[in-house]
């Protein structure tokens, strides 16, 4: 599955399975994220490509790692070791700050993966970056 298809499917899966399967409407999710109501539909169908910042917001709303939006083969073990090594250096931080720094490091890594996939044809598939 292409990265962008994976992202689109993940957004839909998270929304539909929200609250133990009760689900969340596209309008409600749009309100939480501060985007137009039809944007969610367009993200889920791949008509629009969410920015990495949008994906970060979605991941935080649903309480999942930003890594879960990407195929596991792209989030490979070697690079996870790099992330762990980076964070070991910061082990004396306040636990809340360490957790937030981890989210930032994951965001940074996800951006590296995502921008390589979206830069030439960002925005709509083949269109403007959103």
């Amino acid at each position: 599955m292409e990265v962008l298809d994976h992202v689109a499917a993940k957004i839909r899966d998270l929304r539909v399975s929200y609250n133990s399967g009760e689900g969340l409407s596209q309008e409600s999710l749009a309100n939480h994220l501060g985007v137009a109501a039809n944007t969610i539909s367009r993200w889920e169908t791949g008509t629009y490509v969410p920015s990495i910042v949008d994906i970060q917001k979605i991941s935080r709303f649903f309480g999942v790692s930003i890594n879960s939006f990407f195929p596991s083969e792209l989030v490979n073990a070697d690079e996870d070791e790099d992330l762990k090594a980076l964070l070991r250096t910061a082990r004396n931080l306040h636990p809340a700050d360490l957790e937030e720094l981890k989210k930032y490091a994951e965001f940074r890594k996800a951006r590296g993966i995502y921008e390589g996939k979206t830069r030439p044809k960002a925005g709509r598939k083949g269109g403007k970056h959103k």
Partner: protein
Amino acid sequence: MNTQHYYEDLKALARQVRAEHGLSSPRVLPTDLMRIYEKHGIVLDQWPYRFRNLRGAFINDHLGTTIMVAKGLPLDPMVFTMAHELKHFFRDRDLGISYCDQSNLNKSLEIGAEIFAAELLFPDRDLSVT
């Protein structure tokens, strides 16, 4: 190099950076530092989520060189943090990651970064009484 020489070297580096980038007054703005970052290929991330104590972090790895600054900082602490992290780019980039919070400010690398930032923003020469 003993500690005193290390700190003097960092002050000299700060003065060199000021000269190279045309910083001629004590009023250094975020845009001045962004210009320096851009010249050196450093990506600046203003992280919009809350940290308790962390002000900023420097990461240099296979994804590139990134400085993260906590977005909620008031202007002056933000500028100081940006200057502080710049020292890690010039002198500590082989370490991979450096972070700046209250727990590590007594370490020589961090004291050095504070001295560099102070000299970059408020050179001794400009503050000395004649």
